[in-house]
């Protein structure tokens, strides 16, 4: 685990840090050169960025390193991450890089890497990339082998074509939808959707911002409560959605002005896909709501619980055919569907939810009322890494009656509640997620938090 206050994280997931204060141009060049070396043969590489000012610096470094290795760089400009992944597939590129820090605040930035087909790197690929980075033996082309860069402006329209092929956009025009774009990339797509397909989207915080976002770009229920829910009632919308900066995550509020738990994005989509018979498997992580099991059971589906992180899902998906999988995702509002081959895509998730409303002829609040109440509490505490194993042992001993799962930190399961305690991959903290059916697990959550806190400094 990183030091408390760490500002740089180089891991198999990629490169992430606070620009100028941890994350430097040198890291960008080295990591991009490692990726350029990792993609053995010179080929086509698609890049795109979010609106952060530092993303321009990162783009220049990434472009330089890719060209130096002889790759052809196709720059999409400012686009959502799922559009980059779509373009990789569509342009038959060898890979891609997304520049942007997604749900982190403006001072952060990150690089995400994709391989052929727009897929996330598997664990073994990520490990190899990291090895190349550490070895710093980059493979560059000679003077007559360096690549060329070109700009591609058509990626957004091609992505919209794909959305139009998958979703009944004509029918979705009857909904009035409020969207908080958080000054991120979703606005670009959604604005075009209103123009091209006549969707009634009311966009707020649509302007791209490079230096500061109007609010933290996190897709949590709390953010939806503060920023989104009150406005949904005011404008009389049928639904409200809130995106992070690179549009891979989304959360929502109902027409009643109720902010929903971000956990429900995956639940509603799983419900829809299972009901339609599109696959049986629901892949999710150990920290996501147990409501998934309940919903899956209604349709004879099956939930596969994985360690937290994109990596574990990516690796697991490799073992299933597309027809088997209904949905894969996490409770944070990041959901992927086989129809959009395994890309976390907030826009597609939003459309799927609207499609369910349309198909069932019910309001969003009615759809959600179908589900028994689950209450989830989430907390985080900085802790000394050294004693993490002891912490897990003590937690397990304290509740010997619970079923223990050690695949990712420690998860303890009871009949109607569970708690998951794990070390974060992105922040120097221990996360505690606790959920109960039909009530708030306040006592359990507090007890676990107290115990974890006793290990902090």
């Amino acid at each position, binding site marked *: 685990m990183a030091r408390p206050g760490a500002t740089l994280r180089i891991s198999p997931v990629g490169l992430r840090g606070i620009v100028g204060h941890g994350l430097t*141009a040198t890291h960008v*060049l080295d990591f991009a050169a490692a990726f350029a070396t990792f993609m053995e043969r010179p080929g086509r590489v698609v890049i795109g960025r979010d609106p952060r000012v530092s993303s321009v610096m990162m783009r220049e470094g990434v*472009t330089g390193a890719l060209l130096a290795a002889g790759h052809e760089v196709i720059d999409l400009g400012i686009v959502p991450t799922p559009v980059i992944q779509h373009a990789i597939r569509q342009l038959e590129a060898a890979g891609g890089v997304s520049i942007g820090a997604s749900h982190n605040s403006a001072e952060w930035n990150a690089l995400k890497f994709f391989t052929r087909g727009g897929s996330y790197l598997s664990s073994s690929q990520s490990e190899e990339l990291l090895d190349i980075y550490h070895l710093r033996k980059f493979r560059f082309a000679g003077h007559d082998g360096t690549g060329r860069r070109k700009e591609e402006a058509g990626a957004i329209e091609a992505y919209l074509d794909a959305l139009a092929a998958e979703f009944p956009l004509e029918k979705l025009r009857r909904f009035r939808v409020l969207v908080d774009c958080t000054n991120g990339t979703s606005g670009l797509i959604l604005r075009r959707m209103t123009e091209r397909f006549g969707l009634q989207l009311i966009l707020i915080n649509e302007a791209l911002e490079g230096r500061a976002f109007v609010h933290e770009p996190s897709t949590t229920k709390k953010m939806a409560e503060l920023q989104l829910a009150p406005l949904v009632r005011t404008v009389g919308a049928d639904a409200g959605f809130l995106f992070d900066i690179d549009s891979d995550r989304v959360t929502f509020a109902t027409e009643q002005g109720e902010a929903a738990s971000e956990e429900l994005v995956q639940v509603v989509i799983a419900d829809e896909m299972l009901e339609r018979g599109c696959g049986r498997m629901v892949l999710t992580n150990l920290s996501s709501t147990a409501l998934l099991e309940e919903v899956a059971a209604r349709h004879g589906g099956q939930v596969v619980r994985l360690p937290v992180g994109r990596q574990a899902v990516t690796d697991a998906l490799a073992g299933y055919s597309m027809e088997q999988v209904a949905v894969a995702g996490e409770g944070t509002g990041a959901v992927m569907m086989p129809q959009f081959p395994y890309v976390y895509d907030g826009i597609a998730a939003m459309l799927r939810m609207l499609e369910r409303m349309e198909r069932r002829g019910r309001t969003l609040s009615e759809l959600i009322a179908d589900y028994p109440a689950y209450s989830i509490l989430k907390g985080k505490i900085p802790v000394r890494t050294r004693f993490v194993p002891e912490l897990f042992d003590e937690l397990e001993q304290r509740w010997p009656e619970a079923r223990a799962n050690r695949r990712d930190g420690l998860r303890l399961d009871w009949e109607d509640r569970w708690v998951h305690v794990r070390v974060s991959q992105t922040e120097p903290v221990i996360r505690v997620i606790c959920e109960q059916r039909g009530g708030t697990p306040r006592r359990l959550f507090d007890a676990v938090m107290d115990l974890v806190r006793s290990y902090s400094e």
Partner: protein
Amino acid sequence: MSRAHQLKISVAGVRGVVGEFLTPNLACAFAQAFGTYLGPGPVVVARDTRASGEMFVHAVSCGLLAAGCEVIRIGIVPTPTAQIYVADIRAAGGIAVTASHNPPEYNALKLFNSDGLFFNRYERAELLDLYHQSEFRHAANEEMRRVVIDAETAPERHMARILRQVDVDRIRRRRFRVALDGVNGAGSRMSVRFLRDVLGCELHAIHVDPAKPFPRDPEPRAEVLGELSELVTRVRAHAGFAQDPDGDRLAVAGETGRVLDNDDVLALAVDCALRKKKGPVVVNLTTSSVIDDIAARHGCPVYRTPVGEANVVERMRRVQAVIGGEGANGGIIFPEVHYCRDSYLGMALLLERMAETGETLNALAAALPRYWRRSGKFPFEHGRLGQMMQALEAALPCARADRTDGLKLMLEHGWVHVRASNTEPLVRVSAEAKTREEADRLYELAASLR
């Protein structure tokens, strides 16, 4: 090729063989050191036509942005054009991605201060320390600036400055027939526009496609300019011009296709300049004595400096020179335009003189005092140059010695100069005299002592 030659990070900047040695990572870090040194402010980035240039422009931009600078990209332009642009827009500094006359496998970063001048040696040493210490400024997101693209105005700014110095109408009226070898370099487009559209010449141009590789050795020496000579005779041109890839060096062919000696070209330019305005002339130690003779005709003093554009410019500014240059390198520096080697200014001055006098280039050159010159280069070996200098001085006891750059020994009717190259692991030997025999004797004496 020696190891040291493949990558050189020195007070002259960064230069190396692209790929294995000169990497985008290194260029980025060096640019960040440079941006740190300049402080926040606009920094101009230009490049020549080398294929690797595009890649380096991005790497350099990354480093500059990371240091908090604004980046102004002006595309593929000659080095003097970039320098003038920096001065014109009052930028904080500039970087030209070019290895000048070096072969295509090389690339390099040329660095300019806010006046569009090469850094002086103290600034360069400071920058190098910054780079080695890796004490870079790291801008945070809210401090970062953007990239501005201006692919249009730089050549116009440069040409406008030249046109203020010459009588354009006089040149245009003559409708000179001119041959050009642009080496597919950074000046390719601008040279065509300058000679054909601005100076009204009937232009016969070869190798003016910036998308193509260099068709010849990029250093414009007589031995590699056969195609230009042939073109001059075929179209019966009044003059032939050849540039290097970044448009600072100029070679000139007379109406018979013969490539003039670079020292004589500089002498003609000095004559033109001093006819316009009297004042000091600055050249490097290896430049021909013909400059002294021409300056003497105008009653003007000549100052000599170590080899290197930065050295010549530094002295020119100190003595308020009217013109300067480096003979053998084909570089003409005319401060009224800018303190930089400028092939465009050279072309304009010569055409103006031809228009004014009605003389051919060969006739103008023939009127210059005649000197015989010989020069050559030998591999540099550590520790050998000092012994060579000692032996040479002992062999010519009556000579007056100048030790500011290697050793130059001056005799009654000639001189010999030995020095280590600034850019390559070579010892350069030059000799000049009033007679061919004396020039040969001095050259061979020095060569025999190495």
